[in-house]
């Protein structure tokens, strides 16, 4: 149900991997003496820095630059760590009006999610369910977690999702779903909502 920073991780690891690979190749070329031939750099045996490094780092602007670069790298690292916290990333309120000139129509995604849960909970064998909507009203993204008991016909349940649950949500939003995911867990508990049957008795008024 929660989303992690998979894409962000892949992007940053790719960038860092390319940088590490380039540095490694440069070091290999330098140590083997090939860098001197290819890029006309100093030979591997020569000292590159001959003077006193303390004089270079004594200038105040060098210290400031180093400090700023260090802080930026630290903040980026911290943001990357914070981005690892799994998030629900729920959608904002769905706007169901066209131009809004005659008024706005809004519906919270949690309202629709609750309706989906209530509908799913009446399906045979479903113990409990949890729905989460992301995306927009015109391209909603449904994630459904369903816990069923161990005697449930899972294939039949999936067929019911495909024939009633998902089309009903799409019908309510009047737009096709962009994506839908269903996670099914098995539980030893029994269904608590009972079985819905049509009454044939006399209604007393």
């Amino acid at each position, binding site marked *: 149900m929660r989303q992690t920073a998979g894409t962000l991780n892949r992007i940053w690891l790719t960038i860092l991997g390319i940088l590490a690979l380039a540095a490694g190749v440069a070091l290999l070329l330098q140590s083997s003496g090939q860098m001197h031939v290819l890029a006309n750099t100093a030979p591997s045996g020569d000292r590159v820095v001959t003077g006193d490094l303390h004089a270079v780092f004594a200038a105040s602007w060098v210290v400031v630059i180093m400090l700023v670069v260090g802080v930026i790298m630290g903040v980026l690292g911290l943001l990357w760590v914070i981005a690892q916290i799994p998030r629900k990333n729920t959608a904002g309120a769905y706007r*169901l*009006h*066209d131009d809004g*000139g*005659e*008024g*706005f*129509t*809004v*519906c*919270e995604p949690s*309202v*629709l999610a*609750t*309706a989906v849960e*209530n*509908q799913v909970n*009446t399906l045979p064998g479903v113990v409990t369910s949890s729905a989460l909507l992301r995306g927009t009203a015109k391209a909603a993204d449904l994630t459904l977690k369903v816990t069923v008991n161990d005697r449930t016909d899972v294939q039949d349940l999936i067929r019911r999702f495909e024939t009633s649950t998902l089309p*009903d*949500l799409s*019908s*309510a*939003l*009047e737009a096709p779903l962009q994506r839908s995911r269903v996670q099914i867990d098995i539980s030893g508990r029994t269904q*608590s*909502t*009972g079985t*819905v049957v049509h009454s044939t008795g006399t*209604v*007393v008024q």
Partner: protein
Amino acid sequence: MNPQGAHKLPFDRPGGRDVGGSDGSGGDVEMGSRGHTVVADKVIEKIAGQVAGDASSAGGSSGGFFGIGAHADLSARPKASVELTGNIATLSVEVGMLYPVPLRQATEALRQRIRAKVTELTGVEVRQVDIKVSWLTTGAETNGRRRLL
């Protein structure tokens, strides 16, 4: 000056014109002598709520204590609020609906209905109707127990 939260309606005779002539001054004098009709905001809100509740697909919440523990009830009157600017009203209605009705179509029909009825019953021009869908019911929700009749 109208009391706060109230709206003074212009007095029209059945033909749609002011009583006492159409030049303004004579009509105003006669209108003043016959009194004013003041419609409170609450009245417009209740009319809007009732009109919304009369629609078969919309309902409100009932029960609970200070709003805590209230449950969805299609037969209850939805909550409505009004912002009046002169003779122009902007309404906000909080409704519940049956699931899975097409929400855009159902709310648009409800908006037109509220606008027409409130204008007809109060004489206030309803310019905008904001609708918030606060709950959806499948109509077959059960807690697994039999209901006492």
